[in-house]
């Protein structure tokens, strides 16, 4: 009963935060409330007993999306609050309420039967090479999704690098710099643990990559890790390696499959599956971390880059 009360409070808070972030007069307040909303979502995932999602949401939904929106805000000028007239507010509200009624009515009529895929996934778990079902689905049963997701990430990064104007130079304070340096080893340790733990318990490439990206973004905003940019050949190689290691692993798996009738694209041989998954996850983690970092911080302007290059050489 008390837990239900907690759930009710959490749900109410989620709805209020979402509404406030949509309706707030100033855009800055909207973004801040959205970050708070992301944190509460992470709590909701934890309450729904899906720790994989809670980990990913805490790093991505609250951390990285917040940083993205703030850098977008910094690029724009301040907004005057826009006042909408009553009909402009009322008619969409009526439409949305009608939609909400329809959606709720439809949801409550869904049949209460489980998806047949659950039993299949459970039965095949012993052949997947890992013991955590979510990781098994992500990197074995539905590895097409994960491969294409890495491609989507790569495309988003390429697109963003093409269109985004050069990132604004920021100033950093010694205090935030030393604190982010102190945090960096802890972030790397935690990310490594998450990646390794993903085989048997909640965790895996996405969570580890998102966590690494969050740490790298903080360091990057403090003018550290100057080599971490798209113009660096090794960084480009690592970013592409997420997809290419996946494809190469799939080719290798095809070659290693002895039974010729059994050759299926992106299917690991059962006895070697654990190794393949770890290999693919390792490169995927690095690629996800670097891609997300570059998506958030962007590429510095050419002048700043030249300056950083000469500074870096002098430092070396």
């Amino acid at each position, binding site marked *: 009963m008390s837990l239900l009360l907690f759930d009710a409070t959490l749900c109410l808070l989620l709805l209020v935060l979402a509404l406030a972030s949509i309706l707030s007069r100033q855009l800055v307040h909207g973004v801040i409330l959205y970050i708070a909303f992301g944190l509460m979502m992470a709590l909701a995932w934890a309450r729904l007993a899906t720790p994989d999602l809670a980990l990913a949401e805490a790093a991505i939904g609250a951390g990285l999306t917040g940083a993205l929106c703030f850098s977008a805000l910094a690029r724009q000028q301040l907004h005057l609050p826009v006042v909408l007239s009553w009909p402009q507010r009322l008619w969409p509200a009526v439409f949305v309420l009608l939609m909400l009624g329809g959606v709720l009515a439809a949801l409550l009529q869904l049949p209460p039967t489980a998806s047949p895929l659950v039993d299949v996934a459970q039965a095949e778990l012993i052949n997947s090479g890992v013991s955590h079902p979510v990781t098994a689905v992500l990197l074995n049963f539905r590895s097409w999704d994960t491969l294409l997701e890495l491609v989507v990430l790569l495309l988003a990064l390429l697109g963003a690098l093409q269109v985004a104007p050069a990132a604004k130079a920021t100033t950093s*304070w010694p*205090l935030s710099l030393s*604190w982010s340096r102190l*945090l960096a080893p802890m972030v790397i340790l935690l990310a490594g643990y998450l990646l390794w733990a993903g085989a048997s318990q909640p965790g895996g490439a996405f969570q580890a990559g998102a966590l690494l990206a969050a740490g790298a973004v903080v360091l990057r905003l403090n003018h550290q890790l100057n080599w971490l940019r798209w113009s660096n050949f090794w960084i480009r190689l690592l970013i592409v390696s997420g997809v290419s290691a996946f494809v190469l692993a799939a080719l290798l798996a095809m070659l290693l499959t002895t039974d010729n009738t059994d050759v299926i694209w992106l299917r690991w041989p059962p006895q070697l599956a654990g190794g393949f998954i770890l290999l693919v996850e390792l490169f995927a983690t690095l690629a996800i971390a670097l891609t997300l970092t570059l998506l958030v911080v962007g590429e510095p302007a050419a002048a700043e880059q030249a300056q950083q290059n000469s500074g870096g050489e002098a430092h070396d």
Partner: protein
Amino acid sequence: MIDSTGQLSTLSMVLSSLLLMVGLFFFIAGSIGMLRFPDSFSRLHAVTKADSLGLGSIVAGLMFYGELWQNLLLLLIWLLVLASGSVSCQLLARFAKTQQDKT
């Protein structure tokens, strides 16, 4: 703290509840301060002071229930939140100061 039957003794139960209540009180006080105080600096003061102390009491209260290993992790979480809270408070205060000097 947990005796052989797996139950908390009455004394530790009372102590733990007391600490949790104190923590809750500080959280509420900090939130009220953030809503009611007039300028950025006093709001920051209310939030960070009350939150670090409130979280500390809540962690101390929860430690009656955990194993040694879990307690160490709880302590680590508290220290991390404490340090990052102070750092971000410092940064926000400096930002507020530069904004104030500008106008």
